[in-house]
């Protein structure tokens, strides 16, 4: 076993870090306050090939390996969770099309997604449907050579600026997935504002009112929209979010290291106080543990191992919970300054909370992980054998 980035991955991480420090960090608080992401920032992501991270080079993408993709998410997450969420949803749709799209969809849309000419959004959640994603109320009916979509989608990340939406609907009892272009008659896009965190991610609500789309826009076969398209895209999303959490936590840690080295109380720097050091040490250990879980998930994803799915769930669960502890402590360490918009830690804390909700809430991950535990350990023949050996020793 060797857990070490290869030279290319180390270089990529350094490049990502420099880009984020120069191009994103100076503007992240402003984006948060204004609840919008400037188009030029998105264009910079596209120009660097970051929006095409998961798209193979032969399709015009950057073709990053899964660890490098993870590192990109960490660094973007360290700078601005909203921009990281753009990478998340854009990559989810790209992955869904690459895996389950028709030849036409791949040939037509993937190069556009790779260049950033087209921004994609993932439209699963609805006003009445969150964790119970299989129960979507949006409907699709086949009529002539078209599908007619009706329903509402909510909390759609970057829905305000997306050019295409991957929409999940119930098609005559079969969960199905469709590509809907933003200018399709019958589609209305309403901005959502005033959110707690990830405030620059330009959320939108979609209203589909007899929205007619060509039959070629069906992605994958009818009936496999949830079990295969949504599930595999969400798996990618969880991986991206897990790394994004590591990024927020790392930003918190670096802010705390700096702050406690510059501010004095009781005549000494904050870092000299043992209770401050306790919070710093917990943050360091938790961040390293979360990052290792992400590495594990990324490695398994890279080799296509079925266990990558549960390991991604575990990584997302752990990273999204520890980032809340780390961000909460970061605000605590900063005191009154931490509650002020003059310091970014309040943004980190608000963004951290969102991470526990998106791409499967903490409670949904717990259900999944516990189910895996009972499947893997309680009835495992191998474990029984090991247990017997242990009892015998």
């Amino acid at each position, binding site marked *: 076993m060797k857990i070490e980035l290869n030279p290319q991955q180390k270089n990529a991480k350094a490049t990502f870090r420099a880009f984020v420090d120069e191009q994103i960090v100076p503007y992240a608080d402003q984006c948060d306050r204004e609840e919008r992401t400037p188009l030029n920032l998105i264009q910079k992501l596209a120009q660097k090939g970051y929006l095409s991270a998961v798209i193979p080079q032969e399709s015009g993408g950057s073709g990053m390996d899964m660890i490098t993709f993870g590192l990109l998410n960490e660094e973007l997450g360290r700078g601005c969770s909203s921009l990281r969420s753009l990478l998340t949803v854009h990559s989810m749709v790209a992955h869904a099309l690459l895996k389950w799209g028709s030849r036409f969809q791949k040939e037509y849309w993937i190069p556009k997604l790779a260049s950033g000419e087209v921004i994609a959004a993932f439209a699963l959640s609805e006003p009445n449907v969150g964790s119970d994603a299989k129960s979507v109320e949006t409907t699709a009916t086949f009529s002539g050579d078209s599908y007619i979509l009706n329903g509402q989608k909510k909390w759609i990340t970057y829905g305000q600026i997306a050019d295409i939406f991957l929409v999940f609907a119930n098609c005559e009892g079969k969960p199905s997935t469709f590509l809907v272009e933003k200018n399709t008659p019958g589609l209305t896009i309403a901005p959502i504002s005033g959110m707690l965190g990830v405030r620059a991610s330009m959320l939108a609500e979609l209203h589909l009112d007899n929205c007619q789309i060509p039959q070629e826009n069906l992605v*994958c076969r009818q009936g496999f929209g949830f*079990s*295969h398209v949504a599930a*595999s895209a969400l798996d990618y999303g969880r991986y991206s979010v897990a790394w994004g959490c590591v990024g927020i936590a790392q930003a918190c840690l670096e802010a705390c290291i700096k702050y406690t080295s510059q501010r004095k109380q009781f005549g000494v720097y904050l870092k000299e106080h043992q209770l401050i050091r306790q919070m710093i040490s917990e943050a360091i250990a938790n961040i390293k543990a979360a990052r290792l879980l992400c590495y594990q998930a990324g490695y398994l994803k890279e080799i296509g191992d*079925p266990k990558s*799915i549960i390991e991604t769930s575990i990584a997302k669960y752990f990273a999204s919970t520890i980032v809340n502890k780390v961000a909460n402590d970061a605000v605590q360490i900063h005191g009154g300054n931490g509650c002020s918009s003059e310091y970014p830690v309040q943004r980190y804390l608000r963004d951290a909370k969102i991470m526990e909700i998106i791409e499967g809430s903490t409670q949904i991950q717990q259900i999944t992980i516990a189910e895996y535990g009972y499947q893997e350990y309680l009835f495992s023949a191998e474990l029984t054998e090991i247990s017997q050996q242990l009892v015998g020793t």
Partner: protein
Amino acid sequence: MEEVKAKIKKFLSRFFTGHEFQADEDIFALGFVNSMFAMQLVLFIEQEFQITIENEDLDFDNFRTINAMALLIKRKIPVVAGN
């Protein structure tokens, strides 16, 4: 084919604890098929047999029994070898 079936059976046994699978048994009828299982099954087949499950392969009948999965794999392996 028997080796392929044995590998599939071993994989399935992790999810259907204590159940002795028959090659023609309908796994969907057992009532334990969720999205996580479906994804893991796709990844298992792809990784174990070095094939790619594509849009056109997604037919419930291709995954209903061990025999059906083995036939799907057999159909796809020569295509890979031909490349």
